[in-house]
């Protein structure tokens, strides 16, 4: 079950071309959503203004090697190991979701574009990695949703009172939960149940990628940029903010 390509089975009622077009549409939705978010918050404008101010305030010029070193530190600390979180449980949960999402997304694209039908047999490792990604996402995601959301854990809000910040995690969990449900149901051969679970999977996936303008999905793109920027500010002596834990280390 976990070693066969679930998307190849779908060709019974869905042509591979439709799945490929859907992926392209979702990529476009993320791009449009991110641009709309940037326009709404004027974040690009403020980022450029801040750059100018920091250039004027810098007490030392950074060489290319300095910047490359800072970029590497950002990649290792903030991106690869979720170093901005001081709570180790959140770091683990975030890392599970981050790497799980990369595996799940990457393997989905590989299976849909590389091995769309049974005519091109899928190597066992690819669906296996897809399932590992899904399970990592589910563990990290449900752990975060039930135990680590700060508004619930610290601010005393009811667990099931959803706020705008929950849009991303709820749609993400809905998407991967129904992905797993659909894969399991599909192996039983029940076409109606397969169509229902697959429909819910697509519904939540569409919500996930089409709600970027309002959700926190775009943090994947913004956060590394901001983290790098803060390191540059600190190193060039232009920062007026207290150094963060990571910058001090």
């Amino acid at each position, binding site marked *: 079950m976990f070693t066969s390509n679930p998307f190849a089975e779908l060709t019974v009622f869905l042509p591979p071309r439709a799945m490929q077009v859907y992926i392209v549409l979702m990529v476009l939705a993320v791009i449009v959503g991110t641009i709309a978010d940037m326009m709404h918050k004027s974040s690009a404008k403020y980022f450029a203004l801040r750059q100018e101010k920091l250039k004027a305030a810098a007490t030392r010029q950074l060489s290319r090697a300095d910047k490359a070193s800072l970029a590497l530190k950002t990649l290792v600390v903030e991106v690869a190991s979720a170093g901005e979180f001081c709570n180790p449980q959140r770091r683990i949960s975030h890392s599970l979701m981050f790497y799980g999402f990369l595996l799940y997304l990457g393997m989905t694209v590989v299976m849909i574009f590389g091995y769309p039908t049974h005519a091109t047999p899928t190597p066992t490792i690819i669906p296996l990695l897809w399932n590992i990604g899904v399970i990592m996402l589910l563990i990290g995601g449900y752990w975060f949703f039930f135990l680590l959301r700060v508004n619930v854990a610290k601010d005393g809000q009811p667990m099931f009172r959803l706020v705008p910040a929950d849009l991303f995690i709820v749609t993400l969990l809905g998407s991967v939960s129904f992905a797993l449900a659909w894969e399991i149901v599909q192996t039983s051969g029940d076409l109606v149940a397969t169509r229902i679970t697959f429909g819910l999977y697509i519904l939540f996936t569409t919500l996930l990628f089409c709600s970027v303008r309002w959700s926190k999905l775009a943090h994947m793109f913004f956060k590394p940029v901001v983290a790098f920027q803060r390191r540059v500010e600190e190193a060039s002596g232009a920062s*007026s903010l207290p150094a963060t834990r990571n910058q001090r280390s």
Partner: protein
Amino acid sequence: MPTFVYMASCDGCGECVDICPSDIMHIDPTTRRAFNIEPNFCWECYACVKACPQNAIDVRGYSDFAPLGHSVRVIRDEEKSTIAWKIIFRDGREKNFESPIRTTPWGSIKSPSDYEVPSQDAFKTQELAHEPETLNIDKLPALSPDQLKLGVV
């Protein structure tokens, strides 16, 4: 000098929400980051400033000593157990104040949420929750009822 949060530095850990005695540090429902919901009610204890692991909470200086163009930065140093205040004046002068704030290592004190919820009987005593054991004494000094008679004490 009420506190405020740098959104770019806050990681939403909720330490300030836990520690604020005025219950005015809350979590923003859109960004899931902390913010001071009512600066007017901040009694300036700076518990949140000291508790923030990311140095994301700072204070707004009053205009008499820190007028426009100023900055007041609070820097928390866990290793040295100090809080340093850095005041930058409009003319560029800087003043730094460093204060030791504790004698025990950072994080060595049990969080209030780690204690058990007091029983209903505990509410009937004059002692606060988990007293006297949390004070490392056997018994709190208290007057017995017979000492409360008029003219005795």
